[in-house]
């Protein structure tokens, strides 16, 4: 099967005189490298410059709060079921009286952990979520020396209450809604 028309048949023939004096081929090669010498460089000076992320990049998860600052998650466990890498674990608890300002639903996740070494950042958890509680963001998981530190609990996942600590996920939210309507969910 021919995939491209760039393939060349290799023949083990004697070299011609022109090929044997090497010089034409050498000058051709040097012309090529000279052109590369003045070409735009591919290197990105990392700490100073950063590569632009796609607006729908899938990175560090966030557990969203609603307008009143209450956690959206109701610990239904659908994300954990949907997760192909089995990275998500949670423990549910019942909302007590007086905690209505903390949790939106009557049941909430007392413990919510994502193992970032298991996670494959596929985004199926956000698609499974019926409460629009979990989203993937364009933040990268920081490096660490200890495996234990990659198990992110609620302290690392839930966004802050204050407006400046909120994580903007509108683009991602729109993207998921479009995806869902496309398949008719």
């Amino acid at each position, binding site marked *: 099967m021919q995939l491209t028309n760039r393939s060349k048949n290799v023949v083990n023939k004697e070299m011609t005189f022109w090929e044997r004096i090497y010089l034409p081929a*050498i000058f051709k090669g*040097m012309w090529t*490298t*000279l052109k590369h*010498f003045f070409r735009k460089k591919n290197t990105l000076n990392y700490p100073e410059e950063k590569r632009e992320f796609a607006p729908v990049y899938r990175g560090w998860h966030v557990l969203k709060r609603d307008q009143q600052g209450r956690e959206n998650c109701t610990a239904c466990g659908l994300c954990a079921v949907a997760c192909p890498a089995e990275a998500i674990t949670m423990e549910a608890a019942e909302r007590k009286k007086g905690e209505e300002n903390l949790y939106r639903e009557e049941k909430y996740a007392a413990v919510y952990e994502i193992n970032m070494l298991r996670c494959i950042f596929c985004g199926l958890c956000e698609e499974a979520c019926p409460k629009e509680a979990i989203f993937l963001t364009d933040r990268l998981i920081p490096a660490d020396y200890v495996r234990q530190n990659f198990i992110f609990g609620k302290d690392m996942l839930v966004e802050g209450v204050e407006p400046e600590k909120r994580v903007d996920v509108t683009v991602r939210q729109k993207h998921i809604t479009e995806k869902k309507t496309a398949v008719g969910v």
Partner: protein
Amino acid sequence: MTAIILFTSAIFIEKAILILVLFVLTLSVAAYSTYGERKVAAFIQDRLGPNRAGPWGLLQPLVDGAKFFTKEDFMPNAAEKWLFILAPGAFMFVALMTSAVIPWGTQLTAFGGAVDLQVADLNIGILYIIGFTSLGVYGIMIGGWASNNKFSLYGAIRASAQMVSYELAMGLSIIAVVMLTGTLSLKEMAAQQAGFNWNIWYQPLGFLIFFVCSLAECNRAPFDMAECETELVGGYHTEYSSMKLGFFLFAEYINMFIACAVIATMYFGGYNFPGVDPGWLGGLMGPIVMLGKTFFFIFVFMWIRWTIPRFRYDQLMRLGWKSLIPLAILNMLLTGAGVLLFGK
């Protein structure tokens, strides 16, 4: 009596200063050649190269040098101790010696005096250079042998075989230049090529042969058979570490610098350039032109290294014995005929 002592001591001091300047110049050019090499390699491969140490990475050679000094100085248990230590020193010594006969300019005139810009005007300058570069292979041979490592020994054997093969063609191409100029002194060769009357116009084939041979003499790609990382894990310096390794690598860059200077002197007019008097700026113009040409050829050396893949050993030998030597002899005959028919 005192006049003689004064005169000799003046000459002594003058030469000592010149040697010191040349020594520092050679070492710094070699150091910055490593930087240049990495930059050229990077640019040819669409990268930026070292740019973290200082502005544009200009402090990189200094940092590398400091690193070489602080590394563990490892010596194999079964190595020949004294030869192992001697080899990098010998290689470095030979590399530094060759710069003595190269004319960097005509004369430096300052404070009413005149100083020759050449450490020693030997009347056999070019022979001296050929002799010393041939000695250079001893450093490689001793190092490869003393390491007690088969890869090192292979590298050393290859280096010496290559040296023998290419030195012949090199010598033959030099003979053509000597026939043309009628002198073995590099100073006179440079002086004869005043203006644009460069030897390259009379010796294009000879230049090509000399250039290829000096690539081989410097153990540079595509003739770096002595090192070839992919086959010999570094060749003769596989077992070397710390500043001993640094000496080997450094001496190679010095060799390259000298080879480029010799090419510039023999074929490209040395310190001469059309429309530029080497006496300008109190004689400083000569060295500037000369160094410019030398740096250009260093760049070409690097450019070639990052373009052409390494020759196979048998191809190398075939090129040396079956192509370059006959071509060099032909070139010699043609030059002889030309000199006989048209004069110099």
